[in-house]
C-alpha cells in the first residue's frame, strides 16, 4: 500500500503541507519523531518582524528584504503564495479566529514584557495588540511560577512604540483555585474550563481594576473550549481580556496543533507520532520509500511524493557529527551555509551572528533540494520550513511565515504535478 504523499515532520511546515494536500483529496501520512514545534511556540504567526529594524508592514517590506537576501526561503515563494497561505491558514484555523494581516504587524506582549511584531494572533490575544499603546492591568496567579506580572508590566511600560502612543501597565496577583505549589499551565487551562472557577477569577480581577482599559492574563484560558473561557472572562471582567504567552507548554500552541491535527484527520490524512525516519530508498532519481524505526524492526513506507519538513539543527533535521561534516539527517543531502572544515562553528556570544545560523538545504523553484551537482536530488522530494537554507528566523521573527508559506507552496507544487 503506497501513500500519495508522506510528509516528514509535524511542525508548521509539515502540517501546512499535510493538511493542504489532504484537503485536495490526496492520501497523506505525516510522520513525526515527536510532537512538532507548534506546542512550544506562542501560537501567533510571525511573518517578518525585523529587517533588521522592526517591521510595521511585512508585505511592503518583503520585496526589499528578498532583494537583500536572494537565497532566503521567502525568495522561493511569491507574495501571492504568502498571501494565499495566510488566507488559507485563517480558514483552516477558524475555530481559533485568527486575526491580523500581512499589511500591519501587531505588537504583542511576550512573557518578558517585550513587544513581538507578529502578523496573526488568535482571538484570545487580539486585545493585546499594543501598536497604538494601552492602559493595562497585567494579572498573575499567586504561586504560579511560569508567569511574573510585574516583570511583564515594568518592561511593557518601558517599551518604545516609536512615538505611536504609550503603554501604562500595572501588575497584580490574584489567587486561583488549586494548590499553589502545583499550578501548571495544563491544569490551569483545564480548571478554567469549569464555569465556577473562571467566575471566581473574573470577580477577583474586577475587584482589582482602577482606570485600566484592558486586562492581560497568562495564556491558560482553556484548551478545548478557549473561546468560551475567554469570552466569558471578558464578560465577567467587563473589559477586553487578552492572553500573554507563558513559558512552554503553550496552551495557544497546543490549541493550534489540535485544530490542525483535526483538520488533517477530517480530510482523511493521518499523523503518526513517535516515528523516527531513519533513512530512505531511491531509484531512477525518485525517492521510493522512507525507512522508519519501529519497536523491534524497521519498515519501508512508500509514497509517490515526499515532503521533507524535518526542521533544522534544533529538531534533528540537520545532524552535526562531532568534528565531521554537517549533513541533512535522512537523505544525506548537502547543506549550504555550513562553515568550512576547520572554521569555528560557534561565535563567542549567544546573541552574535552564529556561523551555523542559516544552515539548510538549497532548493530549486519547486522547492526540490539540490544534490551535490546542483540539480534537484530527487524529482519527487520537496523541502519546506526550517530545513531550508538562508533564514535566521529567531532574529527576523519570520519562522512561522516561512514554514507556512513554503509548506503551502510545496503542497501546491505537488498538486500542480510539477514533481
Amino acid at each position: 500500500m503506497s501513500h500519495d504523499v508522506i510528509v516528514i515532520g509535524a511542525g508548521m511546515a509539515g502540517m501546512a503541507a499535510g493538511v493542504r494536500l489532504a484537503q485536495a483529496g490526496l492520501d497523506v501520512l505525516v510522520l513525526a519523531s515527536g510532537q512538532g514545534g507548534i506546542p512550544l511556540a506562542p501560537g501567533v504567526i510571525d511573518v517578518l518582524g525585523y529587517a533588521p529594524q522592526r517591521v510595521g508592514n511585512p508585505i511592503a517590506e518583503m520585496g526589499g528584504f528578498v532583494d537583500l537576501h536572494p537565497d532566503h526561503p521567502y525568495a522561493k515563494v511569491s507574495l501571492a503564495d504568502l498571501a494565499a497561505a495566510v488566507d488559507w491558514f485563517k480558514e483552516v484555523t477558524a475555530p481559533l479566529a485568527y486575526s491580523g494581516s500581512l499589511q500591519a504587524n501587531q505588537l504583542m506582549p511576550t512573557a518578558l514584557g517585550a513587544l513581538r511584531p507578529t502578523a496573526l494572533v488568535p482571538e484570545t490575544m487580539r486585545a493585546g495588540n499594543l501598536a497604538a499603546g494601552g492602559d493595562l492591568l497585567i494579572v498573575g496567579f499567586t504561586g504560579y511560577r511560569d508567569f511574573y506580572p510585574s516583570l511583564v508590566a515594568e518592561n511593557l511600560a518601558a517599551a518604545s512604540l516609536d512615538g505611536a502612543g504609550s503603554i501604562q501597565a500595572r501588575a497584580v496577583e490574584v489567587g486561583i483555585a488549586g494548590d499553589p505549589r502545583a499550578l501548571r499551565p495544563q491544569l490551569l487551562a483545564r480548571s478554567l474550563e469549569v464555569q465556577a472557577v473562571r467566575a471566581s477569577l473574573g470577580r477577583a480581577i474586577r475587584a482589582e481594576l482602577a482606570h485600566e482599559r484592558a486586562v492581560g492574563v497568562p495564556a491558560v484560558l482553556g484548551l478545548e473550549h478557549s473561546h468560551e473561557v475567554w469570552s466569558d472572562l471578558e464578560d465577567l471582567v467587563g473589559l477586553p481580556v487578552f492572553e500573554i504567552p507563558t513559558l512552554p507548554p503553550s496552551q495557544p500552541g497546543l490549541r493550534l496543533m489540535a485544530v490542525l491535527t483535526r483538520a488533517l484527520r477530517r480530510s482523511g490524512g493521518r499523523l503518526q507520532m513517535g516515528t523516527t525516519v531513519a533513512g530512505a530508498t531511491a531509484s531512477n532519481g525518485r525517492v521510493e520509500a522512507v525507512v522508519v524505526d519501529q519497536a523491534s524492526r524497521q519498515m519501508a513506507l512508500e509514497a509517490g511524493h515526499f515532503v521533507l519538513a524535518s526542521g533544522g539543527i534544533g529538531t534533528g533535521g540537520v545532524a552535526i557529527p562531532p568534528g565531521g561534516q554537517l549533513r541533512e539527517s535522512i537523505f544525506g543531502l548537502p547543506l549550504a551555509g555550513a562553515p568550512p572544515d576547520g572554521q569555528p562553528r560557534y561565535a563567542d556570544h549567544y546573541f552574535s551572528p552564529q556561523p551555523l545560523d542559516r544552515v539548510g538545504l538549497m532548493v530549486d523553484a519547486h522547492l526540490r533540494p539540490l544534490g551535490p551537482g546542483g540539480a534537484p536530488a530527487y524529482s519527487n522530494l520537496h523541502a519546506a520550513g526550517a530545513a531550508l537554507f538562508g533564514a535566521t528566523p529567531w532574529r527576523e521573527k519570520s519562522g512561522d511565515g516561512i514554514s507556512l508559506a513554503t509548506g503551502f507552496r510545496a503542497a501546491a507544487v505537488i498538486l500542480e504535478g510539477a514533481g
Partner: protein
Amino acid sequence: MRAAPLVEFDVRSSLDHCIKCTICESACPVATVTELFPGPKTVGPQAERFRAGAHSPDTSVDYCSGCGVCSRVCPQGVRIAEINSRARAQLKAERGIPLRDQMLARPGVLGRLGRPVAPLFNWAIGNSAMRLLAERTVAIHHLAPSPRVVTRTFSYWMGRRHSPEARRKVIYFHGCSTQYFEPEVGKQVVAILEHNGFQVIAPKQDCCGLPLQSNGIYPAARQYVTRLARQLSVPGTEQLPVIASSTSCGLMLKREGLEILGVDDEHLRDVSRRTYDIFEFLLELHQRGELRTDFQPVPLTIAYHAPCQQQNQEIGKPALDILALVPGLRLVELDRYCCGIAGTYGTKREKYEIAMRVGEPLFADIQDASPDLVACDSETCRWQIAKATGVTSVHPLEVLYRAYGGS
C-alpha cells in the same frame, strides 16, 4: 541511504538529550488531570539526576500510569517512560510491594485460581458488597472494571482442535487475557489466520510479565518474559512470525523486555524481531496482495481507539487500514492518547478517579460519535471503555471476523 545515529545511547543516558521543552508534560494524560503527578519530565529526566546511587527524591513517580505517551511525543528521543518505569521499580524495591500490586501483577495466577471456581469468582467480582470488602482490604477500587473468568480456557479449546496443515505457519502468542478471560478473541484470531491460509501453532505459554513490570516488580518480570521467549521458541519454528493479539504484551516481547527490563537473552532478542501485532501482520499480507478480502458488508458505525501500548509499537494504526476495506462499515477514528486504565493502574483505589478523569475526553468523543461498537486492540482498555460509556467494546478482530462471515 541509512544514516547511522551519531551517538548510541541507552535508556538512562538519553536524559542528557532533554531540552526541558515540556512537550511531554503537556501531553501527559495524568499530569493534565491531577496535582499528585508533577509530570513526566519532572519525575523523569529531572529527578533522575538525584537518583544515581541514592533514594528517589519523592514517591510521585508511582502516579505515572506508564502509558508511554511522553516518550512518543518527545522530539529529542528521551526514553522518559522507560526512565520512569525503572524509577518506580527502584522505589518498589526500596519500600516493598503491596499485596494488591502483587496480585494484580499476576493475571495468570488469578486466572488459574479463579477458573476452577469461576461462578463463585465471577459472582464475587460482580457483587458490590464483596467489591467494597476488596477495596477496604486490598485497595482495589470497587467500581474498577474487571473481567470475568471462563471455565474453558483458550488453550483447552485450541488443544482439542487441529489447525489444518498448511505450508505457511505462524506462532500465536495469545496472552493471559485470551487464555482466561476472553477466549473468543483467540478463536477469532485462529479463524482469521486459517481463513488466510495459515496453520496456527499455539505452544503452551505463560504470562509475559508486563503487569509485573508496570507494577515495578522487575526480578519476576524478567523471569516471566525470558520463560515466555523460550516457550515461543518451539524447535523447528525458528523462522516463523509470532502473532500477538494483546498489544501491551506484544510490545513487551518486541521491546520492553529488552529495553526497560534490560533482559539479555538470545531467545528474547530473536522472538522480538519476529513478533507482529495481528493487524500489523494482516496489513503486511494485504500490502503483498495476499490478504483475502471476501468480505461481507458490516453495516455498523464503529469508533476505533488505538490504545497507548499499540501506538508505542510505532506501527501506525493498521487496524484502521484493514477495517477500511470492509464494505458498509462506518469508521470513526478516536484521536485520544489514553483511556486511563493503563493496565492495572486505574483499578487501584488511589488511582481510580485519576484514571476516569484521564479517560473523560475519550469517553466524550465516544458519546458524540454514538457508535454501535467501540473497537480497541487492548483488553483492559476495552473493559474500561465499556464500563465508562456503556458502549460494547470489542477487539477490532471481531469486526473483521464478522466481515469474513463469522458470527
